[in-house]
């Protein structure tokens, strides 16, 4: 890492002299953002929690190639996802499909929010029992003072 930095620094100083005058700028293919978005939702089947976009495995690489081909052929998102799902099962989708076996997970957050909101309001309404905190709050020595009679 440090060596690379030093090397980089040295090169940064040396390169402007050698730099060619002309540079051809290559633009990203217009489909790439869509490909990236799709690839992020597909799990690399031979890796663990990585999407095929993140994974460096050869299977993920080949899946990216297929994904690009399908996008180039003008296939829709749903069709592309279904292509992989029909081969690798629901496992390949990093977010469980809402209509699949794991679809209920999408209800988790709304349910918890409703329950938590209800609990919050219920606690707020339990306002009656206001107790003054004793002015002479116990100090740390209380443990000792309370003695051995426990």
């Amino acid at each position, binding site marked *: 890492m440090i060596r690379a930095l030093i090397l980089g620094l040295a090169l940064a100083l040396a390169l402007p002299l050698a730099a*060619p005058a002309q540079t051809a700028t290559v633009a990203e293919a217009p489909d790439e953002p869509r490909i990236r978005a799709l690839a992020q939702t597909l799990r690399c089947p031979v890796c663990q929690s990585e999407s095929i976009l993140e994974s460096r495995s050869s299977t993920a690489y080949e899946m990216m190639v297929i994904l690009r081909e399908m996008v180039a052929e003008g296939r829709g998102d749903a069709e592309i996802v279904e292509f992989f799902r029909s081969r690798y099962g629901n496992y390949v989708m990093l977010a*469980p499909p809402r209509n699949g076996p794991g679809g209920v997970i999408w209800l988790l957050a709304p349910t918890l929010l409703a329950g938590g909101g209800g609990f919050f309001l219920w606690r*707020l309404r339990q306002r009656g029992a206001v107790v003054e905190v004793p002015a002479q709050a116990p100090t740390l020595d209380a443990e000792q003072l309370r003695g051995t009679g426990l």
Partner: protein
Amino acid sequence: MDFPLIRLGGLAIATALALSLAAAGLALASRQGRDAARLVAARNAVLAVAALLSFGMAILIHAFVISDFSVAYVAQNSNLSLPVLYKITATWGAHEGSLLLWAWYLGVLSAAAVLIHWRDHPLSMPWIIATLALVQAGFLALIVFLSNPFATLAPLPPDGRDLNPLLQDPGLAFHPPVLYLGYVGFAVPFAFAVAAMMRAHVGTEWVSAVRRWVLFAWTALTSGIIFGGYWAYYELGWGGYWAWDPVENASLMPWLAGTALMHSMMAQDRRHMFRLWNAFLVVATFLLTLLGTFLVRSGVLTSVHAFATDPARGGYILAFMVVAMGAGFGLLIWRAESLESDAGVESPLSREAGLLANNVLLMIAALIVVIGTLFPLAVELATGDKISVGAPYFNHVMVPLMLGVMVLMALGPSVPWRAMPGDRFTRIMRLPGAAALVALAAGLAMGARDATTLAAMTIIAFAATATLADIGRAIAARARVGGTGWGRAALAATLQGRRRMGGLIVHFGMVLIGAGMIGSGLFQQAQTVHLRPGEAAAIHGYEVRLDGVEDTTGPNWQGKLARFSILRDGAVVDTMLPEQRFYELRGMATTETAIRSELAGDLYIFFGDEDAGAVVAQIYWNPLIGLVWLGWMVVLAGSFLSLTEAGALRRRVPRAQPSEVAAE
């Protein structure tokens, strides 16, 4: 020569196990401390365990440094050609050694806790010692019987099998040690809670004592998590830092619960509220650290970070967790009636109400992470189908939730205990509200139309302004009262109100972290391009030109290095050198990203396969990501400020009438 030394290591941890059991037995037999001799013996056993484990740790590190391949663990995780730094860090690079690190921390922290609180908590001490010693014995039994790092190999191998290449990085020196410190730190509050519940003495003393332990553990856990993110960002190389992998989630669970705990403890300390809830949170946070250990080491869930797994270990950790859970929650259920607090929330516009809302949201977040992580297992057991709950799900659900937490974070410190007049609240919120509107307008002007993006920008601006305004008000009050200049007032406010100022600084750090995450997550630019030498890609006003690809080698790897020139307005401003490395021994390839950091963001490059003379380059512009790391340092500063608060507990009784400076 080295063989006896290793035998001593094995002997040390076996003795530590026996002494831990002895400490627990002596503490329990001390008749609640009335038998002082037994209690002193138990304490000394705890101290001896810490010393023995330190010795064991030193021996294992030594074995790595001298490449003693007669030790199976060293042979599996080191290599003669490994650089010395990685030889040392390899000590905790796999299951056995990382468990020993864990046990060592627990030993040292237990000893520290017993020494620090020996005078303060004489009546709780037997239970504290017994709890800590039993937890220690639980881990040591796992090490001694199922994961012994000191086990030796019969035929001495000529060389080791090398450390996992992904771990051959300076990150391994910081991330696990700091993260584990956080995990282990939560064992001390657990011990205090057990003691308080056993003695049915559940006032505020234990919470006051535990506050700093919780803050310490939380700071370490936060640092460990963020450091892990940073490591993933530059080492794993996909432009992100958090993948919602089960093992990452395992560290987030206790973090969320611990964050809730740190806040709700304030209510017990100041207002004698939430007593049952705090006991629950302490137990839950500790159990979540055990759940994390289980998930990482049992092989129940697949994960990038998982250790080599073994069902026997998984079964043992599960049994351990069930025992801890039975003890912790059993006590809670048994003592619930005496824990229930009588005080209620007086007004929805009060610190209490804010803390309650904070706890509700953080617990929802923790539950979502726990359930989401375990959900695939549940579905598999129920239907036989295997599903994934990954980043797209968690991002969708957690981002709005954490934005909600950030709103509360902005409001909470501005609101005093008990109640506050509505008009004063409106007055205080005027400035942050205006900042929020400006941010919203700026977002719309920038062309953002996505609801989450706009909400995120608005909330970040609101929280940043509200927190800074709180800091400003604290300083202004000092200046007014003391009649001094601003500089002096700032110093006084910082030094004399360390808890409050520390908390506000931590909050500001969290706002920075949030801003960095939102910026890099929602405004990331990316380019995936096939480049031939001489060709360039344009991103964020830069031209990234590939100059060539060459071979490169390291001590234990071979690889390729791509030379990129970074041009701005036609002039070369920098050179970036991402690499691909191949580690022969493990047959593994890694990608080394090149990162160019500046204030506005990071230029982030790595390259994939070569394809007909061109390389596939992934070029990212990650705006504001530096704020995540900067925010972490601010969090650290705030935590340390809060930790250095003078030990004596000043107990002020909150006044009924709201004061000008919101009382903490």
